[in-house]
């Protein structure tokens, strides 16, 4: 066979053509793959690869329909606001309008603002009579609601409210409103809550401050520690420090020996004839710098020596508790504590200076057997029963049901013994469902052996809620549990009954059961059968009395809310129109208004959320980053009064801007004067920023600081400057 040059050329051409075709195919495949992986969102990539190579179709949206639904929901809320405004009771109108405005804020800010204004205006009080005081309390509650939507407005309102008080009460009122607002906001918005807590410090330690920082510690420990130091500092700067407040603040760092029912619980111990917080044991994990700061301030404060006889006793007791700790934590201060005690000794009762006065701070531990034997040896039956009740209640708190039942069985008072047995069963049942991978059948068995009544109803409701959460809203056994809870509730004779009936309706609503309508109607009828005063002073506690000894057992259960709001909202979410009709049947205006607000919330909750709603955490950037991303800047003006008073220096403001680039939160960290601080706030609120995004494209809020210099030149003219780097 002869191969000609022409054949070779032909083969070569065919070979190259085939190679080219293969290469083109490979390149186009690679390019297509790249394109697809860039174009598809992460969650669709997997679906596309499973379904072969078909391009997925974009999800269909019905934006026009959603917008209409949202508008309709807002319209319904306006109608509900009108209904609340028609009520006679100022309390019902003011507080519930404010709650409604707070819910409406995100959807219709101008209308919400006007509702807030109405609520504020109807609660402005002048004078100090009983009615004025009641109005003033309502006004505070309205401000607390305003703070959820517009914290800066709330701050101004608090300052105005304080000015209305007599001079000596103004700061204390402001402190009280600020801390109440802070506590209210803690779950929803810890950052803003901290701002209000900071503002509450001024005159002493406002009631609730310690609880606030203890709760904050579980969410943001550095911030809680910072507030603690601020409180310490604020107390130390008082002309006359209240030693009781100072002592109480120590509970943040120290606790008492033995088991406490709650990590935030405070043990008050009798020392001679006064009652003081027991702070003899170190709390684990507390930074030594805080302890050191507390000791250093304590040494200063105690050294000042008060002339008040009562305060001297508390000073001595505090010194007694701190001295042994100071030997380890701050040895350089022990001499000062020693000197304080020596100086106080002649001025306090002699009994207080003896070690025996402090014997209850760390009582010797006794075993259960020893305590039971001691109880047995009491001379009278009543004393024995009281001792057994004491042992049972302590074991109850520690979830030691075996001991609690042993002590309960020895109580001779049959009625008290039986009631205690039910309370122990209740705690045992709630403890069982609190455990990981809870054995619900065991809890149900406990509930089934309990007599009809409030404990059984609460326990069954708690079990039902867990069943709904774990199984979803389709279960016959859950409906049976709710039915049993409902029956148990019906057997109660006091005003807790309608609340438990409403809770049953709420659980049936969660289950999407048609029985919800009947249960709601029954609850509403039942609410109407009680007087309003009976419904407002509810006590979710069972108490047992033997002789003069009374023990209270709180009926807390996991997942169980006793509130009207949560239960009514659950019902309203299932069918807002029906819930609205039932709410209007409520005889008592307060309850009616509360019901209508929950219906409003349900309307808004069911409406599609606004696009701008983002649930993101602010990311911190430095000043350079803040200024680089600013798209509109406004320099603060120099307030005339500040120029006149020659107030000058640096002002530092911290701000947060949201995913749209709008400033949503501001706080002055440093400023030569209040008016300069206000001017800075006014200016930075007008700044706009380029919206920031995370790497994955998620919009994000940004937090950062800005610095301004306020300077007065030789001619007395005020000038506001950026830092040199940004001029």
């Amino acid at each position, binding site marked *: 066979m002869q191969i000609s040059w022409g054949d070779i050329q032909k083969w070569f051409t065919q070979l190259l*053509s085939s190679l*080219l075709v293969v290469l083109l195919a490979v390149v186009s495949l690679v390019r297509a793959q790249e394109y697809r992986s860039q174009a598809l969102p992460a969650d669709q990539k997997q679906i596309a690869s499973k379904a072969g190579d078909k391009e997925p179709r974009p999800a269909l949206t019905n934006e026009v329909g959603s917008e209409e639904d949202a508008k309709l929901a807002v319209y319904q809320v306006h109608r509900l606001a009108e209904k609340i405004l028609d009520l006679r009771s100022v309390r019902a109108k003011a507080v519930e309008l404010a709650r409604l405005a707070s819910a409406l804020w995100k959807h219709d800010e101008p209308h919400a603002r006007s509702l807030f204004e109405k609520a504020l205006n109807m609660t402005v009080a002048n004078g100090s009579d009983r009615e004025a005081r009641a109005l003033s309390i309502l006004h505070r509650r309205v401000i607390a609601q305003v703070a959820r939507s517009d914290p800066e407005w709330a701050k101004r309102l608090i300052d105005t409210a304080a000015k209305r008080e007599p001079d000596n009460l103004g700061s204390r009122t402001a402190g009280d409103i600020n801390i109440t607002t802070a506590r209210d906001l803690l779950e929803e918005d810890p950052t803003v809550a901290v701002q209000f807590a900071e503002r509450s410090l001024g005159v002493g330690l406002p009631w609730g401050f310690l609880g606030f920082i203890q709760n904050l510690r579980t969410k943001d420990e550095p911030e809680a520690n910072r507030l603690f130091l601020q409180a310490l500092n604020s107390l130390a700067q008082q002309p006359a420090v209240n030693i009781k407040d100072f002592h109480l603040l120590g509970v943040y760092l120290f606790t008492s020996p033995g088991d406490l029912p709650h990590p935030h619980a405070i043990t008050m111990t009798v020392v001679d004839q006064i009652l003081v917080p027991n702070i003899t044991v170190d709390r684990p994990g507390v930074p030594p710098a805080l302890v050191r700061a507390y000791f250093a301030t304590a040494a200063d404060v105690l050294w000042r020596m008060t002339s008040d006889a009562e305060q001297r006793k508390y000073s001595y007791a505090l010194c007694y508790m701190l001295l042994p700790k100071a030997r380890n934590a701050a040895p350089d201060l022990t001499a000062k504590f020693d000197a304080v005690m020596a100086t106080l000794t002649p001025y306090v009762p002699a009994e207080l200076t003896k070690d025996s006065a402090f014997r209850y701070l760390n009582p010797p531990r006794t075993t259960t057997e020893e305590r039971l034997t001691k109880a047995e040896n009491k001379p009278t039956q009543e004393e024995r029963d009281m001792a057994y009740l004491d042992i049972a209640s302590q074991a109850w708190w520690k979830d030691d049901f075996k001991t609690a039942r042993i002590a309960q069985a020895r109580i001779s008072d049959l009625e008290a013994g039986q009631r205690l047995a039910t309370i122990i069963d209740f705690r045992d049942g709630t403890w069982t469902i609190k455990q990981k991978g809870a054995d619900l059948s065991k809890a149900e068995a406990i509930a089934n052996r309990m007599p009809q009544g409030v404990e059984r109803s609460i326990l069954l409701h708690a079990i039902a809620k867990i069943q709904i959460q774990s199984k979803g809203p389709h279960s016959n056994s859950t409906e049976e549990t709710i039915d049993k809870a409902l029956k148990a509730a019906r057997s109660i004779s006091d005003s807790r009954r309608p609340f438990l009936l409403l809770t049953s309706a709420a659980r049936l609503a969660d289950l999407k059961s048609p029985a919800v309508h009947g249960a709601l109607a029954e609850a509403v009828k039942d609410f109407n059968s009680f007087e309003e005063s009976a419904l407002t002073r509810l006590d979710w506690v069972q108490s047992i009395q033997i002789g003069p000894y009374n023990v209270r057992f709180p009926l807390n259960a996991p997942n169980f809310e006793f509130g009207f709001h949560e239960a009514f909202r659950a019902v309203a979410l299932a069918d807002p129109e029906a819930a609205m009709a039932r709410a209007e049947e409520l005889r008592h205006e307060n309850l009616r208004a509360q019901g209508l607000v929950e219906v409003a919330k349900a309307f808004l909750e069911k409406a599609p959320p606004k696009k701008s709603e983002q649930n993101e955490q602010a990311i911190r950037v430095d000043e350079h980053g803040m200024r680089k991303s600013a798209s509109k800047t406004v320099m603060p003006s120099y307030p005339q009064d500040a120029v006149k008073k020659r107030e000058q220096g640096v002002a*530092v403001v911290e701000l947060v801007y949201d995913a749209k680039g709008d400033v949503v939160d501001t706080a002055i960290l440093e400023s030569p004067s209040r008016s300069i601080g206000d001017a800075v706030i006014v200016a930075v609120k007008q700044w706009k920023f380029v919206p920031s995004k995370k790497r994955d494209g998620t919009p994000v809020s940004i937090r950062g600081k800005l610095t301004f210099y306020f300077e007065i030149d030789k001619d007395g003219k005020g000038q506001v400057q950026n830092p040199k780097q940004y001029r």
Partner: protein
Amino acid sequence: MTIRILNVAILVVALVLSALLVRKFFFERAQQSSNYQLTTNSSLRIKGINWADSDRTVLLALSKDCKYCSQNAGFYRRLAASLVSESKTRLIAVFPERQQGSGEAYLKELEIPIREVLYVSLPSVGINSVPTLAILDQNGVVTDMWGGKFSPLEEQALMSKLQLEDTRSPDEWSIDEASLERKVADKESLVLLDIRERAFYAMKHRDGARNIPLDELRVRAPNELPLDHTIVIYGNDRSEIDLAYSILDSQGFANLLILVQSPTDATKQSP
């Protein structure tokens, strides 16, 4: 003739496409591998170095056009001088390959006595920034690593790690309580700078101290601190003081001192 031109055209297109594919699959992968970063506990291999030749090796990755390398020169000089008499520790300087032959002159110019100089592709061995100082054991495993400008506290830490005595007097960068009191009494031009959070400053601070929290220092220092004054820094935390020192140093504050606090100094503070 037409067929020949067509053949050549097909060949050219095929070659271009092949080159693109090769680039995509091999070159980009090679680039990815250069993202490797040397860290402590990772091992390092450099051609021409046998780590087992000495008990440990101090490796100094430098570049003649790096600002911090020149700023660290004083410390490198002291380090190299201390290691001359230390037989167990070997000191090697490595420069980027592209600076072949100029590293020795650079070290001579800065009077840093390092005899062993090598040229390597720094990213290929995981060194992505200069200056980097690494201490390696006999197996070439990095036991400690530092990067960037050395602060006095870092210098101190490194020297004590190598069990070397620093010839630089602590008086050059630190000041004790008694000396500070003397300087204040003599009305020397100094600023006592408290870099702690406002809340800590508000609690207690030293007499006459000025508070600029650390996170605001970079912006505020050039506006508020006089360059010709001695700045005495104090705070709660060594690493924060160290960072404050580095910030001020890089901003041209020449007279910086760190206040050495004794445990009982707190009593000398005033509210």
